[in-house]
């Protein structure tokens, strides 16, 4: 997927574990793992708000758009 979740980096910068974040934002560890590993199909605004509040960051710090090679080729051809 072209959207990359940078939760790992944010947690590392803030010396926080995934379990601790899960407890603070009242989300299951399993769901947070899905988000961290990039397997999530969608993220709720409420989840995004909770993560940004706890980690003191902007949504843009958490998510990044990286077009995959097929998408890049398609854009170049157009």
């Amino acid at each position, binding site marked *: 997927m072209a959207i990359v979740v940078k939760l790992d980096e944010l947690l590392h910068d803030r010396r926080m574990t995934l379990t601790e974040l899960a407890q603070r934002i009242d989300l299951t560890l399993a*769901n947070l793992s*899905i988000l961290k590993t990039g397997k999530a199909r969608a993220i*709720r605004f409420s989840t995004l708000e909770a993560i940004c509040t706890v980690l003191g960051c902007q949504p843009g710090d958490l998510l990044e758009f990286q077009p995959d090679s097929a998408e890049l080729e398609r854009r170049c051809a157009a």
Partner: protein
Amino acid sequence: MKQSAALPMAWITLRIMIILVWIFFGSILALLLFSFLDESATSKLLGLGGLPESMSGIRSIAILGVLTAPINYAILKCLLDMVETVRSGDPFVRENAYRLNTIAWLLLVMGVANIILASSGKRVSIPQHAFYFDVTWSVNGWLAVILTFVLARVFAAGAMMREDLEGTV
């Protein structure tokens, strides 16, 4: 969620219908084979009065019956598998959309077979015969085909929404 009595009833009914389909298949196949072994006895048994043109017509209908039995089985098996998914509490899966689509196509085939059967029946039997075919063309069958195709699309959309929901954090 409270379990409905309709599901166990549907499961049992479908199981019984599958057994009946195979009994029907075996009986028709036996009749067809017997008609080649002893034509006069078969004709007498069916009350055809020894008319050779009736026997060939009956054979063509029997062949059609033998061919449609596996289709009936496939429809019932798909329905049974769907009932199983409802019982397990997870009916909005892609497999059920594929199953409904398969059922719709098979119902379409059955509709065509029904037309052939109706025309063959009219050709070989008259009301005075003991073996009288009265298969008529029904609009309900074709409505069922359309309905099943639409339901297949509904299930496909439902399965997609379910997958999205499961992947939402």
